[in-house]
């Protein structure tokens, strides 16, 4: 029971730190002072205590969107081994539930955004659902290859136990999956080069324009959900990258969190050195992510 509570707490409390760290990294690269590391937490606190302005066009679905987005990402996070190498929700095929929970969150969020009837939201929604069509097959390609590596259908087995021995045998496919999923993480969490979280022009946004009309506590929930969408893939990548059996306990937790933060710094570096891609180019990059994962899968399947 305690492990469940700890995992939920980590899922709800830790993710905004990643956003703060990314912003700090970008500030360092740009030579600015930048916002403090904990700025995302101040923002959440402020939003949670603010009132709400809601469009007259909306129905109950407008409020359901943030709820579903937050709950689904949190539940999906329970499937992933976080600070400890064991999880609370685990059964053969939980990888499918994982992907479809995130899909449910996306479905509810884009519908709640269309509920306002605003043309801007329409733009964001069109992009979000289009990119997802290319990202989901890539995600499953990677999962397939990992199932082949670990000979199991449980997420926890897929992600943990990648020891030095595994890496020497399956190194190439694993690297391909990691690079493909890194791209997917950037796309899913709407970072540069797929989307610019700091852009001020609705016409170029994806995520920001979807949540344009949400305010107050709803916006806070959406921010947490968005940060989780960064944290969960980062955690998956970290789990894949940890090649030593650390034996559980607090050392394991600390190492894991350090690797996750390193992933966030990497995202910050990518954001600092790249510009946002033009929208028509994004599908090509996502297809490339899928193709890389497909190569990984083929390589893994043909390995002796």
């Amino acid at each position, binding site marked *: 029971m305690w492990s469940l509570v700890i995992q939920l707490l980590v899922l709800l409390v830790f993710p905004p730190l990643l956003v703060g760290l990314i912003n700090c990294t970008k500030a360092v690269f740009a030579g600015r002072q930048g916002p403090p590391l904990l700025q995302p937490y101040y923002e959440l606190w402020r939003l949670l*205590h*603010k*009132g*709400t*302005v*809601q*469009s*007259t*066009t909306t*129905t109950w*679905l407008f*409020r359901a969107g*943030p*709820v*579903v987005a937050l*709950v689904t990402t*949190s*539940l999906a996070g329970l499937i992933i081994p976080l600070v400890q190498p064991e999880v609370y*929700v685990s*059964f*053969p*095929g*939980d990888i*499918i*539930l994982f992907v*479809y*929970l995130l*899909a449910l969150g996306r*479905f509810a969020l884009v*519908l709640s955004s*269309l509920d306002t*009837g*605003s*043309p*801007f*939201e*329409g*733009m964001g*929604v*069109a*992009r979000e*659902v*289009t990119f*997802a*069509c290319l990202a*989901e*097959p890539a995600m*499953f390609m990677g999962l*397939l290859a990992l*199932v*082949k590596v670990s*000979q*199991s*259908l449980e997420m926890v087995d897929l992600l943990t136990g990648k020891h030095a021995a595994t890496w020497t045998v399956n190194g190439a496919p694993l690297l391909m999956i990691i690079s493909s999923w890194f791209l997917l993480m950037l796309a899913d969490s709407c970072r540069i080069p797929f989307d610019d979280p700091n852009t001020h022009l609705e016409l170029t946004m994806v995520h920001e324009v979807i949540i344009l009309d949400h305010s*107050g*506590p*709803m916006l806070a*929930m959406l921010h947490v959900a968005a940060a989780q969408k960064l944290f969960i893939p980062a955690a998956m990548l970290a789990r894949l990258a940890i090649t030593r059996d650390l034996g559980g306990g607090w050392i394991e937790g600390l190492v894991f969190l350090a690797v996750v933060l390193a992933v966030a710094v990497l995202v910050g570096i990518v954001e600092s050195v790249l510009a946002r891609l033009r929208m028509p180019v994004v599908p090509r990059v996502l297809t490339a992510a*899928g193709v890389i994962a497909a190569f990984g899968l083929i390589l893994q*399947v043909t390995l002796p």
Partner: protein
Amino acid sequence: MFESDRLLLSALILASISGIPGLFFNRRSLVAPWIAAMLMVTSGTVGLIGAVQCAAQCASGSDVMLVEYPLPLPDASFALSVDPLSAFFLAAIFLVSTLGSLYGLEYWKPTEHPDNARKLRLFYGLLTACLAIVVLAKNSVTFLFGWEGMAVSAFFLVATEDDRNDVRDAGWMYLAASHAGTLALFTMFALMYGATGHFDFLPLTSDQISPAFASTLFLLALGGFGLKAGLMPLHFWLPGAHAMAPSHVSAIMSGVLIKMGIYGLVRMTGLLPDPPLWWGSLVLALGTVSAVFGMVLALSQHDLKRLLAYSSIENIGIVAIGLGLALLGRSLHNPVWVILGLSGALLHVWNHCLFKSLLFLAAGTVIHATHTRKIDELGGMAKPMPWTAAAFLVGASSACGLPPFNGFVSEFLIYLGLFHTLGLPGEPALPAAAFAIPALALSGAAAIACFVKAYGIVFLGVPRKPLAHRPHDPHWPMRLPLVVLSVIAISLGILTASVAPRLNGICAKWSGLSWDASIAASTLGPLVPLGWALIGLLGSLLFVFCWLRWKISTHPYAEHDTWGCGYLAPTPRLQYTGTSLTQFLVSLFGWSIQPVEIRPRIRELFPVQAAYWSEVPEIVLDRVVSPVFDALARRLLWFRLIQQGSVQIYLLYIVAMLVVLFTVF
């Protein structure tokens, strides 16, 4: 109390006569529809009870015989019997037909449609009875009786509004396609009779038929049943027929009638011995193509009912993927693939039946209220029609295969089975089949895009065109089916863990393999924790939603117009349309679906008016079927010589034919 076989027979008879009393009433009579509906409700209730009882009875192994009546043909009889597979499909038939007839009370009022309401009711009952005969048939003669009856009554239902040109065209195409399929089935059953000497549906053994002969039978079955099921590329008749029919007819067609193709495929493949590997691979490949391109075509549609029809093709594709996997499992003697593939496919048949009839009925409610099927003219329907909107949302989420709805669980089983093809410990490997997974994921993501468009554009925002009347939710006869189907869709999603193991008997009988109960239990084991996870999901959604309501209610709250970038006079036309929502995605798939686009060309600095328009043609129909048949029609023009149109000449033909027959034989 009652024998279950009597129950089923009386349900059949009640359904087939349900439209007849109405024929003696005035065409505008409001009593006649109620009589028909009550007969259908009785038939459906009795039929459902009968099906459940029969399923329990034949779980022990023996089929329940309903009726056997010798026909004046050699070796042939009219014989109906129930086995678990028939009972499984019967439940779907009686559920949807009952709810559909209730729905029709308000949807197709005799006062609004005096010309064809009586015809519609008559053939609705007949269709139900014929569908039941198809799944109950014990031999191929009875099967073809039911099959033809089903095709013809469905034709009259599609062509209900036969005073309209487009309706007649769709009806004719359905009839022609349907008979092309029947032709394949006639050939197949005749070949089977030639090999075995009887018409009964009994398993063929490998010493009765050679492998090549078995493959011929399989291909004929795939052609004939695939055409009915709407498997790509044999789907071309389906969108038109579904779109032009009245909505409760579309519901039964999409929910049940096309499943008869699946039933036939399952039945036939269960009779054929030792399937080679390429059968399963072919079904799997066709299913994958249908799943992906069915959805891509669906999301490019402008007509709400055509969109739903194409999404049916996608779901038939998913069912076919499951069936193909089960066939592969049979070829490789692996029970795990059979259990996951066939249970997933059959459950998806039920689930699709539930959510697609729900979607068609909800769409019909909108069409009834607004008199348009064009997605881009609708909008904001969720406010005046909350019940309909909620029902459509349940159907849409389920059609996207999202947890916790029923569509997710059957897709989960199929996904799980496909993951097993990678070669987990103790199982054979066929990694090529695993590539269906990314395709399934693509179609799932495209389904989300498609239903975000269907729900978002139709129900959210504000109306895009001014409406003559303020739309409102339907009254209870029309609302009840929506509620019932929604409730079943949600509860079946959570309760699958207790339903799926009951299909074990069907899987074992179909595959001819035998396995330990422990294998079945461990294969379907993940459904139990999955059920709990879904309950957890629902619970936490409810909890957080209540928390948010409390949070909002305890803080300042204001309502305001949607922010429109400071634009002074926003109009509903500013909203995104369905076309613009999916334009990006459609252009990504342009290489395959060949959209016809008209783009604005902006030349001056202040362009006055610009319009974008895109239309996705039905490629198989426009590029293959129509040209081939037009060419055939031109070549065979001289056959018209014998079509003289006067009865005497036709009588002469008959006499001449008889003379020829007598002299030859």
